[in-house]
């Protein structure tokens, strides 16, 4: 008997505005369809029509709740290429440190969510307990746990002061000592192996054809990593190698288990990169142009187009920016978040699996729908309740409760 199970916009397995509707017969999935049109927020439209470039950095930063350094990083890289803005050396190093800090916190967050999808809540609590260390470091360095607000065209807005360095070093030591234990808890647990080994396999050929990016494609053995392939920021100094599962487990299967392996390896790699960055951090000022109005002016009179590519925690993140002189704001701005390509990889992964595998396979690509959906254009003719009414209703309810 066939039915369709909607793993939909509101589902405990996938708290993301996307809907996977699987037609199942018995327990086996026979067809997978992805419907992504649940919550498009108009980020590009805002960037092109409403905001000037400085404000667009903060819109880009809020494309994704977790990986919020990668989007402004790409945007700034593209704009700097067009306006040929010089970026001081120290700023390039700070950008590398920030993107690696973000990768650690994003991967550890994902590891906890994956454990929760498997029903292993104590591993979720454990992973998020050790993640607090990187969150405290981020709070000390950036002043805020998640939204860093540190990117500016031509450099960074805040420096890594001398009193921050011992805290970061302490975090590095903490994670290097802990890697063995975390790897043991995740990779040598029999029930996790039973649930993730040979589940959601993405063959190397599918991974390349469907253009998956980031840990999803590296788990299938393809050595694709933007930090290793293209030279941007200070990455040429770090000789970054793409992490594939055979480094730890010796062979490549391309299943959910390998994606856990790749992400844990990347956390270790990021910690080592930060350590090297701190050792070789050049001195000097951190932004090439202090006065913001001058930056706005140079952007306004520049012309041209460029792409910014950066290795976000979930994969390759690319922005295409086109500037036209005299136009206030970005003339054309296209954001492509990493999950955008990885969704296509769901189809071959989920085929002929059981319902129990949907949450963990869907979570294995670390979907971040807020990156992928980006525009809301409200049509107010037949919407009865608007956000305003809902807000007022909630105020009355809170007042009532406070009596």
């Amino acid at each position, binding site marked *: 008997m066939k039915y369709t199970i909607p793993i939909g916009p509101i589902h405990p*397995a996938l708290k993301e505005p996307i809907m996977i509707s699987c037609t199942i017969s018995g327990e086996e999935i026979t067809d997978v369809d992805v419907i992504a049109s649940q919550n498009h927020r108009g980020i590009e439209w805002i960037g092109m029509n409403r905001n000037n470039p400085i404000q667009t950095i903060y819109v880009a930063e809020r494309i994704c709740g977790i990986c919020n350094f990668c989007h402004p990083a790409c945007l700034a890289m593209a704009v700097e290429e067009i306006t040929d803005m010089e970026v001081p050396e120290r700023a390039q190093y700070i950008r590398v440190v920030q993107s690696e800090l973000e990768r650690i916190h994003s991967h550890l967050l994902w590891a906890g969510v994956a454990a929760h999808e498997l029903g292993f*809540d104590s591993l979720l609590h454990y992973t998020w307990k050790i993640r607090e260390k990187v969150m405290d470091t981020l709070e000390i360095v950036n002043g805020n746990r998640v939204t860093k607000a540190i990117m500016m065209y031509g450099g960074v807005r805040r420096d890594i002061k001398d009193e921050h360095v011992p805290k970061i070093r302490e975090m590095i030591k903490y994670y290097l000592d802990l890697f063995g234990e975390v790897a043991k808890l995740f990779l040598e647990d029999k029930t996790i192996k039973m649930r993730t080994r040979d589940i959601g396999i993405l063959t190397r050929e599918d991974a390349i054809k469907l253009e998956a990016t980031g840990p999803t494609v590296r788990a299938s053995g393809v050595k694709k990593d933007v930090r290793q392939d293209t030279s941007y920021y200070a990455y040429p100094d770090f000789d970054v190698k793409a992490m594939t599962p055979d480094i730890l487990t010796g062979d490549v299967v391309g299943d959910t288990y390998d994606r856990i392996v790749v992400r844990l390896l990347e956390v270790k790699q990021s910690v080592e990169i930060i350590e090297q960055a701190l050792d070789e951090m050049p001195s000097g000022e951190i932004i090439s142009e202090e006065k913001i109005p001058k930056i706005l002016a140079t952007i306004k009179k520049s012309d041209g187009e460029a792409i910014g590519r950066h290795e976000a925690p979930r994969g390759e993140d690319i922005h295409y920016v086109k500037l036209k002189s005299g136009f206030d704001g970005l003339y054309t701005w296209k954001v492509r978040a990493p999950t955008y390509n990885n969704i296509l990889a769901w189809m071959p992964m989920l085929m002929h699996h059981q*319902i129990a*595998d*949907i949450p963990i396979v869907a979570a294995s690509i670390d979907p971040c729908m807020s990156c992928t959906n980006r525009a809301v254009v409200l049509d107010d003719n037949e919407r009865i309740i608007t956000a305003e009414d809902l807000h007022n209703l909630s105020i009355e309810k809170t007042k009532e409760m406070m009596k």
Partner: protein
Amino acid sequence: MTGEIFFRVVMGTIGIAFFALFLGLSYKGIDRKIAAHMQSRIGPPLRQPFWDVGKLLVKDNVVPENAVSWLFNLAPVVCLASSITLLLYIPIAGYEPLLHGHGDLILILYLLTIPALSMVVGGFASGSPYATVGAQREMVTMISYEFPLAVAIISVAWKMSDAFKGDIFTLSFISSHPIWGNVGLLGVAGLILILLALIIVLPAELSKIPFDVAEAETEIAGGLLVEYSGRNLAMFYLADGVKTFALTSLVVAIFFPYGISQFFGLGSIPSFIIDFLFFLLKIFLVMLFSVTLIRVGVARLRISQVVSTYWVAITLMALLGLVLLMWDSQVLTVRWW
């Protein structure tokens, strides 16, 4: 005469019911508190389950329109009632159970299936695809854990019939003649294996992780109980508490029916209290090792793995225990004390 028995049974049942509800919920609170501390969290206060039930009773009871409403509302009542009747046959703290008689051990085995069956009926009646999948899974889980459960209990009963004559299939008989006393060294090993099998069967019956595929929260959004709310969900919640208490006391009645009051030689009331507290401690220990520790330490399995674990691994363990028991009495009775 019949009036008096009738009066004793009715009042006894009501007493047992409140007693079971109170203890079931407080054990649930202890379980959540210890699980929380194991995960280095503080966890809710011990009286949290009482608040949860109170809150659920206040919430309104929504019946989905494409559900079979009379079955939908009947299922929780049957589940709670059968869990409480289970307790009538189980000796509490070594004292005579309210109803006992010939063969109540087999009756308990069947009474165990009624709560699970009523959840399945409730799942099918609620008409949502998640609940239907959950109900299918609950049936498959029931089939898989019935086999080792039956093997374990029957082998214990068989061992008793080998040593004693008389009405061995009643629980009070088993708990008054502790099984460990009359088995050889091999028998002890067999009994440990059977105890282990029973300990691993418990999480499946109480649908706790790793075998809670029927109510898997992250896969099918709560499975069977997805459409339940308000009073109905409160009844299922209470039934789960009572079942935990009933099953752990069943394991205690079969394997650890010892009392410690005779060591202190006090009067009747204090020794009763000591016995009762020792009984509660035994319940806590069994629950700690069978439910709390397992549900915190492992991930949830897939339905196909649940069946293969029970039919292959746990049944083999129980059968090996039975073989050792048979070997012990037939061939080498090596006295170990």
